[in-house]
């Protein structure tokens, strides 16, 4: 039977295979293509926008959740910004589980409700908390598990790439932003984000 555990462990196994079998060197240098246009990374805002904001985040990182409404507000108000959300689960098992579940939801077209549900949580998360929050958004663990299992390689691959990119950027932690060619570690206020977008637009 498929349980959360099996989802996690199979994903771990796949990730291990990718990691051990695949890359002779992890990226020390990135291209904009890799960071801005990863085909598997969820894109919000205006997909055709002229500026891309990439956020590396963790669903358990309080400051990611705090900054999230600001980011959404600015992106919406601007109307011409692509927002790419990259999971970088650094706060333990539950963070990895949350990221996988939400990316599973993305495979069945429900990224936004799943992501918003977890961003609205107000505490450190247990597996049960995550399930509850997702159920509250109308997502059953059953369908998410199925989606994660089906798209296992894709999701693991994306998490791997996010991880390598965060390392390559030498980010101190989450949240961290890439806006145009500027890199911003830590939270940004509304003004700061707007300025960064304006600057990226040149």
């Amino acid at each position, binding site marked *: 039977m498929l349980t959360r555990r099996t989802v996690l462990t199979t994903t771990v196994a796949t990730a291990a295979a990718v990691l051990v079998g695949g*890359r002779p060197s992890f990226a020390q240098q990135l291209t904009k293509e890799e960071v801005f246009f990863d085909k598997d990374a969820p894109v919000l805002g205006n997909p055709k926008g002229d500026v891309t904001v990439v956020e590396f985040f963790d669903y358990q990182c309080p400051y990611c959740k705090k900054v999230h409404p600001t980011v959404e507000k600015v992106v919406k108000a601007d109307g011409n910004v692509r927002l790419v959300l990259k999971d970088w689960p650094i706060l333990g098992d539950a963070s990895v589980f949350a990221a996988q579940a939400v990316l599973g939801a993305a495979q069945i077209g429900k990224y936004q409700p799943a992501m918003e549900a977890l961003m609205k949580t107000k505490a450190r998360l247990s597996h049960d908390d995550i399930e509850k929050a997702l159920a509250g958004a109308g997502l059953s663990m059953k369908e998410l598990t199925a989606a994660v299992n089906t798209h296992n390689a894709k999701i693991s691959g994306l998490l791997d790439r996010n991880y390598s990119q965060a390392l390559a950027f030498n980010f101190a932690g989450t949240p961290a932003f890439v806006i145009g060619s500027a890199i911003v570690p830590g939270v940004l206020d509304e003004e700061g984000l707007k300025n960064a977008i304006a600057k990226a637009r040149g």
Partner: protein
Amino acid sequence: MRKASLLALVWVLIAAILPARALEAPLPMDEAFVPAIARQDDGRLTITWSIADGYYLYRDFLAAEDDGNRPVTLQSKPGTVKDDPGFGTTEVYYQKASAWIANAPQTIRLTYQGCQDGGLCYPPTTRTIDTIAMTISKPDSGFAFAPAKDARPVERPDTGFSIAADNGETAVDRLMSGGGHALLFAGFLGFGLLLAFTPCVFPMYPIVAAMLTREGEALTAGRGFVLASAYVLALASAFGLLGIAAAWSGQNLQIVLQSPVAIGAVAALFVLLALSSFGLFHIQLPAAIGNRLKCGRQQGGSVGAAAVLGLSSAFLIGPCVTAPLAGALLYIARTGDIAVGALALFALGLGKGIPLIIMATIGGKALPRAGEWMERVRHVFGFAFLGTAVWLATPLVPERFLLLPWAVLTLAFGVYAGAFDGLRPTRGYGVLARVTAVVSLLWGSLLLVGFGLGANDPLTPLGPLKGAVGVGRTAAIQKSDFTKVSSIVALSSFLDTAAADNQPTLVYVTADWCVTCRTIERSVLTAPDVAAGLDGVRLASLDVSTLDAENGALMRSLAVVGPPTMIFFDRSTDEAPGTRLVGEITPASLADAATLVKGDAR
């Protein structure tokens, strides 16, 4: 194409921090949380963190394990309950945190994690504590190599050494950013051309020559051009396919193909080609093959045969790792951009083949058409094939017996050259043939003597005598001077020992089947400059003759595509930037790199 233009923008990874930040830039993790250890009167080990103002450490994330990855119980005092209406409650430490371990084992790996208040959360960091020496390491190779197992499903191997960051940028990146696909193609074509005259590519020449002599009377310059082009195009395509296979399998496929079976099969193929050149197929031994060759000649099907030969030849020269090949493979592995990598490899193969095409076109005109001479030329190629077969099979032959096949082959050639000498009257060719015969017989005899003496280098059959007479070049570096390392752990401890003695280290990746490596061992390592340059440098070798999980993992952690590769580590076990040597290595380049690492580390 969007992709191409964007790929060209290689980023410089230095953060451009915007002025409009709400909060001050976060400190590096090591500065925000500084751990110290002490032994208490009751024998318990205390770990105390000094925490910068405005930062906090999570109590839940404090963890310790021993060197067998078994958890070690860590006691800690209750922390401050951080109750934020937005984030719920967490137990954290401000300013100072402490934890205790009773009955601490010798080695403890300590993991902890925290946040900048109101700003950013750090990934976990791990440090190793030695409770005998009472030392605490720097974060294990930075967090790049040791994320806590929770943050990453799998822990990256904690290698204890680091490779230089410049490996990320390959020749492909540089050419692509300089001028896109056209420059990339031209660049690799040029690399190929330069490499066309290296030992690795030599077997191609007799193969193409033999292909042409089979044509007999039908051979013209045009025909030579067509055949050689088919051969080279197939060779180049196979190179491109190898790149795709490498990307797909994550392995350097050519290395995998260097199994004794594969080598044996190719060597056998050459023996077969030799026999065919000697005309043995006339006595209908493998009739099917003989017939096919005959048919091919008449119906122009030999263009197809040339292509097949070209495809299989790629495996012959594929394992020769050269800097451009390594660059292209690393590029593919890093970016997953198969098309660009395959294009580069295709161009590389094409470049290697250009001299072949030129040779075939000229040769098509110059080679004798028919008659006794044609037969002779064919026979000489037969010997060349046998030589190639012996040379290929070298890794399969016990070192003690290495000289025997060479001796037999050389003697046989001498006998052959002498045997038809009588037929020729006093023409210049007759003299030449006789001289060749005598030289061959003499050298063959020397080889036999060398075999008796236990020599193993066909070029210095009397080498063992030199040692006995005491003329040996004692200063020269030999392969046996390198300490063999075959796992990450072994290299790590080797480097640590070297670092403790304040010496830099050279890691030489080699293999029995690596043709270029043999050249390096014979003429590069033995150069006086190199011996002087490498004086004071620890020598380690990674032999990948047979690839297994351990040495494969080490190869990957070093970002090595294959042999020959030389990596220099400075005295702090980090690879010295700009010193890595791949492929054709000259005494000068090796001595320069050695000087650089010695100067660097000082």
